[in-house]
């Protein structure tokens, strides 16, 4: 079979499954009792095995098979999770990744020696007899007890405090609260459909306040033969029972009084009476609700874990190039529309103008959609970090807890592709330099386990990504001393810097404060690389720190690289775009306002001396108009704290522009960061303000 055409699909899907495996194992490591995740990752492993076998990659399939055996034992709870197992599994996944990438690049399968893993895995798998004899993990009896309990009687569901309140109140107001256990026929194929019909029927007569398992799981058929529902209704139990039994494939319906169960949880769950309990004469329980029965506790765990899983919508994979083409076509469409509008206006064609207005709405919507299509959640980048952080922490002998927030925050695809490395650098830095060793932390009276956070969120028109730690912070004096030692600044300069600015020195090229050079960070490349990368993305990075409390590295990025707000200015006959992000204000001055200080032209703005830049001279704009007007337009721009005034001939206006690269031939031009196509179809250069200053 020619499998080449499936190669790409195989690679993409394998990567995805490997990522899920990584995530799953991390979850398992954090909570070894949570055996349910093994079920999920077992499926991932199984799929990889199947795919690679189909593709003819027997080695990958073999290794996955061995790993699967271990998962199987874990999920059957015949083996208990321990560090050794986890490490072996993680390493196996790494090897799988290498093998898959290798075949992806057209190389051989066996880039790694799998025999050692294979033997280790099979040793683990065959070692089950030993662990069999050992006491079963704590979770095992609990997890097994739960379904068992569910089978014995209806009164096996756990009521939360809120549930109890609702039930007590409803019963108090004279409503019936029925606990219904519905058992479907064992021959039932479409369990979800039947459960849906049951829920629907109940919804019509009353309100479903609780179901075990939850409604989502019912929809996904994540239940055995029966499920429990608590419903508040004014119908009698008998009537309900008849309604439900009328639904085909419903085998039996047991109805008990939920209010009773809540009131007297201590009482042994009596076998449910076939007939409904007399409900009408139950007095409204006023006594405080008793604690939930202990035996009923476990079942809640699995649904909770499932709910955490992100809902995966339907999606298609699209080559990013196609999206770029789509975007270009979109741009062309808009430009042509503008031309048609001009024709309509000059020839006074009202019918055309009206039609074009309609079209305008459509194109605007279309443009938004095309833009949105390019946006991807940062989670795509973030999801590879937990594993990296885990490995690194082990290597460094540090203990920490990584919190990730805002994975759903969206960024333009082009930014996403570039942002991974800088974030990784910052995380490594936090782990290596920020966090102290557990003993040192304890000595300082901090918890042994450090906190590292990776947080993304929207802030206005930007996305902010923060890497936080509660480590030792950055000592401004140490930075000052190092900077002077390295001859980067003079002693006086160092002393004149305030602490915040001194700490920012770490972003300068060639700065490294690591006492010893480690494999992790501290090679003297790092922070300056991070900064330059972020700045090429049009963002910027800053740091806030407090000694012994920790540091926060904050990356601020534009929402999208493809479209920005810009101010269009004119110099002679040429049009330029200045990104709005770096503009402070625009002012109108006269020739007299320009002073000369140390051979540089400056203006004084609100007491601040600002150097001015004559754009026409810098860019060698050919002079068409010799006549110099007395009115001078100045665009005041800033990069960080530094300001400058750019002198232009005319301000055209603020506009959203689509950024286009100038391509290889014109790469690396100073002062010009890109180009854009204007509404009239002409091209305007976009200025790189930081290069101007």
């Amino acid at each position, binding site marked *: 079979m020619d499998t080449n055409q499936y190669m790409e699909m195989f690679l993409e899907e394998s990567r995805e499954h490997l990522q899920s495996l990584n995530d799953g194992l991390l979850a398992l490591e954090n909570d070894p009792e949570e055996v349910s995740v093994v079920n999920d990752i077992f499926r991932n492993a199984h799929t990889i095995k199947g795919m690679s076998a189909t593709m003819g990659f027997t080695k990958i399939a073999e290794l996955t098979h061995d790993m699967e055996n271990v998962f199987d034992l874990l999920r059957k709870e015949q083996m208990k999770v321990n560090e050794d197992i986890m490490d072996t599994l993680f390493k196996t996944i790494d090897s799988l990744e290498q093998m898959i990438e290798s075949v992806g690049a057209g190389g051989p399968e066996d880039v790694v020696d799998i025999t050692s893993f294979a033997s280790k895995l099979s040793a683990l798998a065959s070692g089950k007899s030993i662990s069999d004899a050992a006491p079963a993990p704590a979770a095992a009896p609990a997890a097994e007890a739960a379904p068992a309990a569910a089978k014995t009687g209806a009164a096996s569901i756990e009521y939360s405090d809120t549930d109890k309140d609702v039930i007590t109140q409803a019963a108090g107001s004279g409503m019936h609260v029925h606990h219904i256990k519905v058992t479907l026929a064992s021959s039932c194929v479409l369990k979800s459909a039947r459960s849906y019909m049951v829920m629907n029927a109940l919804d019509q007569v009353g309100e479903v306040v609780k179901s075990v398992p939850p409604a989502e799981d019912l929809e996904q058929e994540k239940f055995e033969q029966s499920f429990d529902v608590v419903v508040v209704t004014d119908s009698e139990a008998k009537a309900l029972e008849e309604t439900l039994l009328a639904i085909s494939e419903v085998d039996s319906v047991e109805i008990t009084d939920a209010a009773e169960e809540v009131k007297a949880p201590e009482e042994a769950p009596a076998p449910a009476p076939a007939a409904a309990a007399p409900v009408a004469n139950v007095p409204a329980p006023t006594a405080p609700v008793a604690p939930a029965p202990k035996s009923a506790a476990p079942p809640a765990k699995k649904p909770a874990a499932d709910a955490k899983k992100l809902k995966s919508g339907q999606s298609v994979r699209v080559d990013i190039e196609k999206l770029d083409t789509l975007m270009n076509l979109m741009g062309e469409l808009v430009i042509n529309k503008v031309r048609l509008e001009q024709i309509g206006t000059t020839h006074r064609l009202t019918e055309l103008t009206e039609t074009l207005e309609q079209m305008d709405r459509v194109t605007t919507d279309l443009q938004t959609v095309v833009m949105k299509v390019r946006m991807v959640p940062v989670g795509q980048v973030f999801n590879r970090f937990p594993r990296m952080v885990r490995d690194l922490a082990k290597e460094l002998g540090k203990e920490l807890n990584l919190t990730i927030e805002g994975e759903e925050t969206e960024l333009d695809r082009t930014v996403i592709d570039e942002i991974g490395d800088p974030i990784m650098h910052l995380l490594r830095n936090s782990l290596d330099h920020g966090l102290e060793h557990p003993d040192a932390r304890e000595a300082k009276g901090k918890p042994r386990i450090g906190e590292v956070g990776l947080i993304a969120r929207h802030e206005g028109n930007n996305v902010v990504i923060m890497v936080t730690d509660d480590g030792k912070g950055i000592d401004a004096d140490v930075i000052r001393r190092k900077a002077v030692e390295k001859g980067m600044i003079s002693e006086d300069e160092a002393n004149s810097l305030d602490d915040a600015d001194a700490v920012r020195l770490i972003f300068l090229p060639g700065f490294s404060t690591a006492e010893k050079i480690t494999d992790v960070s501290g090679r003297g490349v790092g922070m300056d690389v991070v900064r330059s990368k972020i700045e090429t993305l049009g963002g910027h990075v800053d740091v806030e720190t407090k000694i012994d409390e920790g540091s926060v590295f904050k990356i601020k990025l534009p929402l999208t690289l493809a479209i920005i707000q810009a101010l269009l200015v004119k110099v002679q006959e*040429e049009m330029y775009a200045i990104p709005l992000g770096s503009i402070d204000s625009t002012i109108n001055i006269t020739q007299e306002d320009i002073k000369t200080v140390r051979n540089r032209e400056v203006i004084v703005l609100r007491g601040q001396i600002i150097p001015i830049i004559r754009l026409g001279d810098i860019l060698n*704009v050919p002079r068409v108009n010799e006549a110099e007007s007395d009115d001078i337009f100045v665009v005041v721009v800033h990069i960080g704290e530094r300001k400058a005034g750019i002198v232009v001939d005319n301000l055209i206006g603020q506009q959203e522009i689509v950024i286009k690269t100038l391509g*290889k*031939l014109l790469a690396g*031009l100073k002062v010009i960061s890109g180009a854009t196509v204007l509404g009239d*179809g002409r091209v*305007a250069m976009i200025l790189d303000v930081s290069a101007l200053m």
Partner: protein
Amino acid sequence: MAKGELMNIAEGETQVQVVAFKLRREEYGFNILNVKEIKGLTDITRVPFASDFIKGVINLRGSVLPVIDLKKRLGLQDMEYTDDTRIVVVREDDLEVGMIVDAVTGVITLNGDQIDAAKAVDNENSRFITGVGKVAEERLIILLNLEAIIGLQDEIK
């Protein structure tokens, strides 16, 4: 003559089709496989700090396309643009560039024996030229080396 040419095409092993165009009074050609399209002159935006032979950029259906002033690149004397002036959009690897030419004269099929590599003019421009095609007694087409003209390698030093 025409018949003879057709026969050659039938046997043809090393024939090549070129897009021929004029620069001042001479005729030049690019391999047709490199030519993407030919378009009329549009607004060209000057790019500050770019090499002097780069005339600027144009908007080609929403993308920004650099345009080379081919006469300047080959060291020929400048000439006013006319109604015949065209931009030939060429492609080399993944790089697309527009070339300003004085007029496009047509597509010409040349056979291997019509191309004389040795005839390559020996001057400072020889690196831009791959050979000379002889169409008729009085009609010579100078075949250009696109890679050298785009000149990524030697311009970035």
